[in-house]
């Protein structure tokens, strides 16, 4: 096998390339090149009023805008020292269910399944298995419709604000999503049965998994940062252990633990750390599948997404049935200077925000750590672990297998490249 070079990765969000330099059958260099230009989102939050933040940060990603909204509103609420009501919190979780459903259905069927079924793209998959793709689009639509009912539109919803929601969504619109969610739950159970049968490449990695953990609910917004190595931190202590730094070949920062190790965020980390908090239908799907946890094969993150699909359809159904708007849709804000951080689990992993605001509620500092930046060094290390297998393959197969590994992470390169500081220097 020669050097593997994929100048532009397909079926990932954003612009990145892959390079595995080989010499005498050994990898001498592995790089996930992130050349998508930095997008400076943190920079243009400066001096904005805090209520603009959720709608601006939502624009970082078209797939996980709710994650950006939720991490930002929670951080800003922490800065103001306010806690939303249980009704508001529950509606936020329901909105998050919509995001998980649409994102996971897309990734499972249209981004990763073509690799496992050995077709070049979702269009080719639609040609040979139209019913599979139709099911995927219907499942995805159920999530988008939920987002629309709560947030006013299916992509980049606009109803979330610091303190709650601008208004309670119309109960009739929310309840109208129920039949498709109930259909989707059954489709998700079938997705699990299908997912466990797929032919995954063999790879076992000794990961450090990191995810939000909550003792009662499946970790999405509330809870602490748990690591499979035993670290348990409150959100306010996240930066004491998880550190970002710049690397030469990437416009995205890379994260590592303070001990210097790489770690994994995302569906595998969540499922492995939080499977006891899955709802009953997801628990049953997990038990019936006979899958043993922890799953340590990155390609099998598709299976973790399938279990989560069952879980979030199930939770959405429960919350839609119980939805009865009560009390104020948002809390009145008493502005004061402060600092706060907030976390939530985007479909592709932990998303951390920290802000400082002044007494008028204007942002003076912003830090956003997206999941893909945390996973980038991990992906490079996984590729290194894959090399002994790659060298036994022909060039085309080796390239596809390496690309597939990257895609199994569902990396969102666009999300990961918005936080570089622009440094301009005079040169002779």
């Amino acid at each position, binding site marked *: 096998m020669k050097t593997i070079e994929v100048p*532009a*990765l*397909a*079926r*990932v*969000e*954003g*612009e990145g390339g892959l390079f595995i330099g080989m010499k005498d059958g050994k990898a001498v260099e592995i790089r996930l090149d992130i050349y998508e230009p930095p*997008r*400076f989102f943190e920079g*243009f939050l400066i001096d904005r009023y805090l209520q603009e933040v959720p709608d*601006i940060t939502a*624009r970082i*990603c*078209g*797939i996980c805008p709710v994650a950006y909204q939720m991490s930002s509103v929670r951080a800003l609420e922490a800065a103001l020292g306010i806690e939303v009501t249980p009704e508001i919190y529950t509606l936020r979780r329901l909105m998050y269910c919509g995001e998980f459903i649409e994102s996971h259905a*897309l990734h499972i069927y*249209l*981004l990763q399944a073509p690799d496992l079924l050995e077709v070049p*793209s*979702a*269009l080719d998959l*639609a*040609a040979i298995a*139209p019913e599979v*793709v*139709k099911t995927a*689009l219907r499942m*995805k*639509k159920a999530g*988008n*419709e939920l987002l629309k009912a709560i947030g006013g*539109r*299916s*992509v*980049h919803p606009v109803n979330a604000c610091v303190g709650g929601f601008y208004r309670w969504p119309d109960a009739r619109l929310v309840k109208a999503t129920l039949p498709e969610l109930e259909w989707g739950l059954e489709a998700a159970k079938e997705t699990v049965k299908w997912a466990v049968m797929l032919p995954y490449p063999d790879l076992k990695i000794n990961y450090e998994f990191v995810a939000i953990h909550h003792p009662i609910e499946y970790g999405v917004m509330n809870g602490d940062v748990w690591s499979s190595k035993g670290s348990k931190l409150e959100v306010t202590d996240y930066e004491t252990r998880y550190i970002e730094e710049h690397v030469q070949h990437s416009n995205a920062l890379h994260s590592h633990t303070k001990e210097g190790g790489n770690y994994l965020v995302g569906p595998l980390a969540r499922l492995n750390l939080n499977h006891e908090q899955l709802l009953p239908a997801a628990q049953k799907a997990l038990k019936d599948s006979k899958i043993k946890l922890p799953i340590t094969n990155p390609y099998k993150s598709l299976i973790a997404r399938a279990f989560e699909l069952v879980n979030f359809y199930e939770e959405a159904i429960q919350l839609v049935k119980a939805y009865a708007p009560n009390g104020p849709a948002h809390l009145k804000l008493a502005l004061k200077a402060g600092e706060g951080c907030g976390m939530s689990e985007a479909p592709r992993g932990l998303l951390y925000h920290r802000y400082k605001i002044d007494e008028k509620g204007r942002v003076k500092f912003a830090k956003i750590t997206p999941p893909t930046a945390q996973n980038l060094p991990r992906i490079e290390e996984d590729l290194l672990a894959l090399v002994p297998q790659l060298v036994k393959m022909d060039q085309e197969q080796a390239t596809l297998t390496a690309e597939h590994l990257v895609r199994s992470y569902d990396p*969102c390169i*666009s999300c990961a490249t918005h936080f570089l500081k622009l440094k301009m220097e005079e040169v002779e």
Partner: protein
Amino acid sequence: MYVMNILVLGIGQSLRGDDAAGLEAVRLWQEKFPETAVGARVETSELPGLVLLDLLEGMEAAVIVDAIQSKAPAGTVMRLGSEELASFMPETGFTHGWGIAETLQLGHSLYQGLASCRAILIGIVGGQFDLGAGFSPEVEKALPKAAEMIESEIRKLI
């Protein structure tokens, strides 16, 4: 509402300069031609991706308005018919952000009903797609023309 189900869809990111031209052209059309606009289903979307297929469901005609990149000068307004849209080769690498042409291609391969929807695109050639709101002078000037083209398309349909 008209006898025919007509969708007018403005697409674009409001914080990416001329990319917002589709959103603004549709808004301007609604403002200038309220009597026509009231009979159509009007939607705007920042980044519809595959949601485009949901928006087209049950529609018999669609006028999609979006900013485009082209060798033509910024501010040029183009009309692309169904056949021209279908002839685009899928080339996007970002499956999270499916382009209009490949999404329509996927839709046509899956849903027979979509074949009866006459979709046309009014494309406004953008000059700058930098972060932040605001149009280039060329696109700003072209927006009324784009609004009139939307009106003309709807007039052909009703």
